[in-house]
């Protein structure tokens, strides 16, 4: 695994918005990470942490006036940030596909779901109309929907079925990377479980890499290999899911996990993170989490902690030499905190 180049390598990615006085306010403030081929990576954090924005930036889906202000997104031999729009459009939807939280607003209500999947196929492949109909039926079958349902309209399907259709549409062109942005947040717990299981199965069957964006660490931990925790437009901790789940070091990760009660917990008050994430434009000078952090020390407010690899015995010297970017795919554990647990 260590010899293989990652499928996706992101270096110093930044997204900014113009402020009223003409400056650029950064909402994503320089993030580095990599996704190994076939790996599943979870991206967690509260609303406003920059998690969706950074992942949308990977395929340059940033709505103006927001724009990518810097960074490299290496996908195979190409830098998606520098790529011309025409070539990017070919990669987007074919090699890299997305699934969003609300399938209702992503589906065309006046076309059958089979037709919509076939349209995507025709846009990205050389298949004929008849062939794409067939491939659409196949894609539906792969996500557990009977091919007869290809004539159904979105409103005739339940929320969970609609999300399956979105996933069928996303995988129809056999992408290498699927970016799923809160794909289960609007769904019931049972349907949620089915969708998570479906993503795990597709990853196995198709050798798909997955970026799973969610505010729920428990949920993503069920199917990912690595977790990236974001706060204030930065990565505050990342590493193998086992490490982050069992031995989180950043206080934010610890609290994010503790917020979600377990069924076996005794009844009583929940652990809450008081306050709210900082607004862009009002970022603290130091660690963005410092104002809410129970472990904050004087240095936290004054100075931004860098994201540094932890010295746990898990990583070998070779990984150290490979540099932060490659190490991101190899199983190291990084934390940005002056006073980690």
């Amino acid at each position: 695994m260590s010899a293989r180049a990652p499928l996706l390598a992101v270096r110093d990615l930044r997204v900014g918005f113009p402020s009223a006085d003409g400056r650029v306010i950064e909402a994503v403030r320089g993030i580095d990470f990599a996704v190994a081929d076939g790996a599943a990576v979870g991206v967690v954090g509260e609303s406003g942490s920059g998690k969706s924005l950074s992942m949308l930036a990977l395929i340059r889906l940033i709505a103006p006036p927001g724009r990518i202000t810097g960074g490299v997104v290496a996908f195979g031999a190409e830098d998606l940030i520098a790529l011309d729009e025409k070539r990017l459009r070919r990669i987007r939807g074919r090699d890299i596909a997305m699934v969003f939280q609300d399938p209702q607003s992503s589906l065309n209500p006046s076309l059958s779901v089979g037709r919509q999947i076939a349209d995507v196929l025709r846009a990205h492949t050389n298949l004929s109309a008849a062939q794409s109909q067939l491939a659409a039926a196949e894609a539906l079958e792969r996500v557990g929907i009977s091919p007869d349902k290809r004539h159904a309209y979105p409103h005739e399907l339940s929320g969970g079925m609609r999300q399956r259709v979105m996933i069928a549409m996303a995988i129809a062109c056999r992408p290498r990377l699927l970016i799923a942005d809160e794909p289960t947040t609007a769904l019931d717990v049972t349907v949620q479980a089915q969708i998570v299981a479906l993503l795990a199965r597709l990853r196995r069957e198709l050798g798909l890499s997955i970026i799973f964006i969610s505010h729920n660490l428990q949920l993503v931990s069920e199917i990912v290999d690595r977790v990236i925790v974001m706060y204030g437009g930065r990565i505050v901790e990342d590493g193998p899911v086992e490490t982050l789940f069992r031995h989180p070091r950043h206080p934010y990760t610890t609290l994010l996990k503790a917020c979600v009660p377990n069924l076996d917990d005794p009844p009583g008050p929940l652990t809450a993170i008081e306050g709210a994430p900082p607004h862009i434009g009002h970022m603290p000078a130091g660690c963005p989490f410092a104002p809410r952090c129970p472990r904050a020390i004087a240095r936290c407010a004054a100075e931004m902690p860098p994201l540094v690899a932890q010295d746990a015995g898990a990583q070998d010297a070779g990984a150290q030499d490979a540099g932060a970017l490659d190490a991101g795919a190899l199983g190291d554990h990084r934390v940005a905190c002056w006073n980690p647990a």
Partner: protein
Amino acid sequence: MTGAGTTALELRHVSKAYPRPGVLGRKPSFRALDDISLAITHGDVVGIVGESGSGKSTLAQIAVGLIPPSAGEVLHDGTSLAVLARTPPQQWRPRVQMVFQDSSGALNPRKTVGRCLGETLALRGVAAAGRIAEARALLALVGLGAEVMTRLPHELSGGQRQRVGLARALAMKPEVLIADEPVSSLDVSLQAQIINLLARLTRELNLTLIFISHDLALVRSLCRCVVVMYGGRIVEEGLCADVFAHPAQDYTRRLLAAVPRGLSQQRQTATMPVLISTSAS
């Protein structure tokens, strides 16, 4: 539910049927609720769980009087809602209030928070002179500062809006609060804040709380009793401690099995069947 106190809210053989559009109207109507009987004691904290389509939101809307039942009776504090509805508003204050999943849809987008609370207080008969002070006190109660009085709903965060929705419900001085998926559209961190707030208010204001959610772990942490609904019926009810430890119904067991547990990967996700056929076309 059982208890020594008096009954704050009762549903007696409540059903709700919706006609289904069919050629010549021959399709049988859809039974959203099917003969529900439920009594909730003053001061109790009761969770109602079930999937979309199980009827839990319909139950809430009927209990608060937003929609009429097709059959059966709803009683607030022992008096039938049908009787209360004919009582002049001056002589009757609604004892049951509701908080919705999406407060942005429940708050008028063109009215400031202060105006919204003021109108609710006026409805309760609070004199104009006292409304501002009381609105501020309500906001403080839900953890908001007086500065949000002049804000419009869209200027608030999701968590703040949910707190305003709660303040407005409390402005009517209810005895029973029905919270319908109040945290489902919020982040995990905000979820915990709002759940803790609900628990504190219930205690401090002596409220009866009905908490509707599909999140069983939240119900377990907040509620004393739980009612499990499926297909418009109550399939199981009892103390949380009992139902969660020893579910009697297969459906309850399957709901419990679907709760995310992080790494353990013990969810039976791979084999989980589609549980509800009514909603899947």
